[in-house]
């Protein structure tokens, strides 16, 4: 609320600057749903866009305040015409508006076909945001529930004029407090503001929701995934996590007796288990950390996938940290295909296998077999790419490693984003190591034979040998 003044100033400037440029489009209605069930904020907006200008329009601009744009993990735009999905896109390129004071980020969306004059089209915008829920109070005791604050614009932030709009917050439980507006309704755990009529571009009025959320606030500050391809038919995946409970910090220490005596009351905001969904046919699963196995886990498998329920070494309270690694093997034929050009295509899913987790920094290292050539990577979102070499299992020239790095990864990345890695590999290299071992052992035996037959003694008449020979 304290940011209201500068923010509205900026908005005011923006209104003046940009309204002239894009005035031909009007949003006839928008309904925005904000899902606050977990620590990942998911916003779905259903827009109806109308072209009132004299020209056909091919571009639509989505605007986000910087505070949101910075934490925007991913965004999906679905273009509907007469209720049918005809196009979907993940906008990734952002532009800053030309104004100097701007604290907005624009995401231009190219429409699949030009929106003709006077026509209306539907746009569904699905946005995933992280790090926007702030705990208040910042420190709680074990017995207290975790309360979070979410701040947003009650109006849909857009460079276009909006005729009719409403915003809905879906909350996991009790609401502590919320901004009061005349047009609002609280039904169970759904808080609805609106409808608001005829709002100019960049209208702004803050709305704050303070609510209880005890869902596991797992944030992986670091996640390294190593995928090792063996053309003998196996994919070995190793995932290393450093996980932090990102919610309100624990105050006054942890008392086991309270935690055990009344689990529902005490430590409501903590979490003890994490669930990882591994691909189907996963086998040889392990779960350990730097000091050994973590013996408390359950593994359930079916044709849909394998579910690994990991109990952490200790229950995670606010601000606590833990690190562990899981690993599993997969059959290669599910992930490796051959392209027309004779290339191998490796299809990997980006993102963590743990459910509902925010990954602040993910590094994927794909270790290709020794001797792979012509490596190229295709992905639908920007990642930092680099290549290095890794030596393991009697390698001589090393295995090429494709390193992909991305910040702010959410479960949606796993659902929608595939990474394709193209490379060439000659299967004759498979035999190389076996031949090497055979040769090595052969040489060893040869040396033994030579040594047994060679006489390395300088003189044959040492006193002791004389005696033994004399006896014969």
């Amino acid at each position, binding site marked *: 609320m304290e940011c209201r003044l500068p923010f509205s100033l900026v908005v005011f400037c923006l209104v003046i600057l940009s309204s002239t440029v894009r005035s031909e489009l009007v949003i006839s209605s928008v309904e925005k749903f904000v899902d606050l069930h977990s620590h990942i904020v998911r916003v779905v907006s259903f827009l109806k866009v109308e072209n009132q200008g004299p020209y056909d329009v091919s571009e639509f601009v989505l605007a986000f305040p910087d505070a949101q744009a910075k934490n925007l993990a991913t965004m999906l735009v679905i273009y509907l015409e007469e209720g049918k999905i005809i196009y979907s896109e993940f906008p990734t390129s952002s532009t800053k508006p030309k104004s100097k004071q701007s604290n907005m980020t624009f995401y231009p969306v190219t429409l699949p076909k030009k929106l003709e004059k006077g026509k209306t089209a539907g746009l569904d915008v699905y946005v995933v945001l992280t790090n926007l829920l702030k705990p208040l109070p910042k420190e709680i005791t074990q017995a207290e529930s975790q309360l979070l604050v979410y701040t947003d614009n009650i109006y849909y932030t857009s460079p276009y004029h909006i005729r009719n709009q409403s915003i809905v917050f879906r909350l996991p439980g009790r609401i502590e407090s919320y901004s009061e507006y005349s047009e609002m309704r609280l039904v169970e755990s759904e808080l609805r503001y609106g409808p608001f009529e005829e709002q100019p571009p960049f209208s702004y009025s803050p709305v704050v929701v303070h609510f209880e959320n005890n869902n596991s606030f797992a944030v992986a500050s670091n996640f390294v995934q190593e995928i090792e391809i063996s053309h003998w038919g196996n994919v070995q995946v190793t995932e290393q996590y450093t996980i932090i409970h990102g919610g309100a910090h624990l105050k006054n*220490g942890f008392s*086991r007796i309270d935690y055990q005596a009344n689990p529902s009351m005490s430590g409501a905001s903590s979490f003890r288990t994490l669930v990882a969904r591994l691909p189907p046919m996963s086998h040889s699963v392990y779960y350990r950390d730097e000091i050994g196995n973590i013996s408390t886990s359950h593994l359930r498998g079916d044709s849909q996938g394998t579910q690994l329920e990991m109990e952490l*070494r*200790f229950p995670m309270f606010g601000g*606590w940290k833990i690190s562990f690694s899981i690993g599993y093997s997969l059959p290669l034929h599910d992930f490796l295909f051959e392209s027309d050009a004779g290339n191998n295509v490796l299809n990997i899913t980006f993102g963590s296998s743990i459910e509902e987790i925010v990954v602040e920094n993910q590094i994927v290292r794909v270790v290709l077999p020794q001797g792979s050539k012509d490596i190229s990577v295709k992905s639908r979102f920007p990642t930092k790419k680099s290549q290095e070499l890794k030596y393991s299992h009697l390698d001589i020239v090393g295995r090429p490693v494709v390193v992909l790095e991305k910040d702010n990864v959410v479960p949606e990345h796993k659902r929608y984003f595939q990474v394709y890695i193209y490379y060439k590999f000659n299967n004759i290299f498979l035999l190389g190591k076996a031949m090497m071992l055979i040769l090595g052992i052969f040489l060893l035996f040869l040396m033994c034979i030579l040594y047994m037959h060679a006489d390395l003694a300088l003189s044959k008449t040492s006193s002791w040998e004389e005696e033994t020979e004399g*006896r014969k």
Partner: protein
Amino acid sequence: MATSKVEGSSSLRHAFGGVLSVFILLLIGVVAFSIRLFSVIKYESVIHEFDPYFNYRVTQFLSKNGIYDFWNWFDDRTWYPLGRVIGGTVYPGLTLTAGTMWKLANSLNIPLSVETVCVFTAPIFSAFAAWATYLLTKEVKGPGAGITAAAILAMVPSYISRSVAGSYDNEAVAIFALIFTFYLYIKTLNTGSLFYATLNSLAYFYMVCSWGGYTFIINLIPMHVLLCIVTGRYSSRLYIAYAPLVVLGTLLAALVPVVGFNAVMTSEHFGSFLVFIIIHVVALVYYIKGILTPRLFKVATTLVLTVGIAVCAVVVAILVALVASSPTKGWSGRSLSLLDPTYASKYIPIIASVSEHQPPTWPSYFMDINVLAFLVPAGIVACFLPLSDASSFAVLYLVTSVYFSGVMVRLMLVLAPAACIMSGIALSEAFGVLTRSMKFHITKYFECSHTEAPAKLGESTSTESSAPLENMTKSDTTEKPEVARKEKVARRKQKKEKELTENAHVKPVSAKKEKRPLVLPLEASIVSVFLLIVLGGLYVLHCVWAAAEAYSAPSIVLTSHSHDGLHVFDDFREAYAWLRHNTEVDDKVASWWDYGYQTTAMANRTVIVDNNTWNNTHIATVGTAMSSPEKAAWEIFNSLDVKYVLVVFGGLVGYPSDDINKFLWMVRIGGGVFPHIKEADYLKDGQYRVDAQATHTMLNCLMYKLSYYRFVETDGKGFDRVRRYEIGKKHFKLTHFEEVFTTHHWMVRIYKLKPQKNRIRGKSRKSKLGSKSTSSKSGGMTHKNPWN
């Protein structure tokens, strides 16, 4: 013609026997390795217990920073604020071995983690130890006994207890080094080869690098040399076996930083130098005896004796005076407690407090060496038939190690190889006699049926072995005139026996058999063989059971079988993981010294004391803090910059080796340095208890409070499942500490020191002044901080 035929067939047998024994040895190695994997299969591939964690940490450091940083490593994560010079105070053999193995694997691009290498070091070296036992016993009594001994050693429970996968301790490689050094000594003694003597020094060097037990070698070998000299068995081979070992070995030993000048300055090594002098005197005497006529020699002897005795008396007097001037007579505490078993309990409670330094009980002998205990006497008898240098060494080794194992249960480990060698000899001899008798009866039966001269067969055991035998004895007699000195002949005879056993590849007793044919009835021998096999089978069963059930628990993970299946207690790692991730990197954690190594290795936090109990005062400080009331303890800990206090508590789940059970040692060790802690204050009528009858001091000391804080809320009564009664003081609050973490089964509880409150200056000063003369009569009123 006949001899060449026999030789041809015997060389074929020799080759076959060689291949077979190589194969058997290979299998023995596999058994030795795999019987130790129960811990990995039943639990996990993890480092065990306490000391191995330290070794693991050192190895990690070595593999990360290299050897030069390792020598100069000053560890500030332990013994805060003193620190510890690791490079100079650690036996580097184990870590260097594992580090080298890791480096080798990694240079071949075999991706093994340091942990994996460390876990499997002990099983690998057990296989080596089995092979070394084969070599040693082969030198003593021939290859048959060697293979039997190797097979027995591969699975002896005593050795398994110290070398299961994951028990990454010095003993893991030291036992191999010990046996191998002995082998090379015997080999040198048998061959007189300077090559083996040099190797022997190197093996000794490796042993010095590996374990403090090397003093056993450097005392046992001189004892044996002395024995040989006294029994008139001096020879140049003995000289070659001993003199280079002392010179080279001592020089090499002094290169190891942890030994350094101790190699010449402490009394443990004194015996070897004395014998070194003696052997030179004896060598001189023999030399002079050789060049002088007997009459002149007599004159010279009397002359030298008078002068020599005078000189010796002076030297001995000086030495005795020097040695006596040091309070421990130049011996280290641990060695002294070996010579005088009551020493440690009288003067150094910290040595006595370690459970593995206690004397063993009879059942533990049966547990650890099982049937070997019965076979050993037979082995000793076999060693005396005939007595050679090598077999006398084996007997001496056994006798001394039996004594040492009787003093400290830990040294059972030294006894195990000796017992295995003896049992191997016994079994092999027994089998030799029995199978020979069977063979004799069977051949006689066949010969009788073929109606051929049976009388001839009665003389020798078998036609095959008799021919080379006669051949050998003949060549021996022709050689005799060449040899001038008598005792050399004796040696050679003995050597020849050995040769013979190897060349003709018959059972070692066969040579002896010629002189005194021992033939048992067929039925008796069949039954005996059967019984021996049953005995061996029982031994194997026991060993497998011991390996699987008794000695494989890693002690950081506990399991219990209940009606609803296996239950895992992983509390230690839970606590260490919590410390590792949720405390500041530089926070200091205080706990009893048992958990020091684990805390530094697993939690990566600085500790005040650890299992390397080099500073008694520091440990006593922690002991004092634990046995002081809360406020005094807080002051001690605060002065040590401690942030967290960790206690191990078994009362909820019945884990008996918790801090409350160890508490009396804390009181004793603390009281040994800070006299205001008195053991009597914690005992009620001489009994240690924490129930309602416990003393006020006991119920108010920090350890009690930290262990039982809010314990009563678990069941409403505060029933302690280890002590099996309700605790004395149930409801109390902590004023200077706050609970920050307790593990799932309450086995580890971590408390944080509350920050200092604003206090009135005068009050704190008064308590400090008063502390000088406090006596803890009224319990709980002690305010002494040993650091002030």
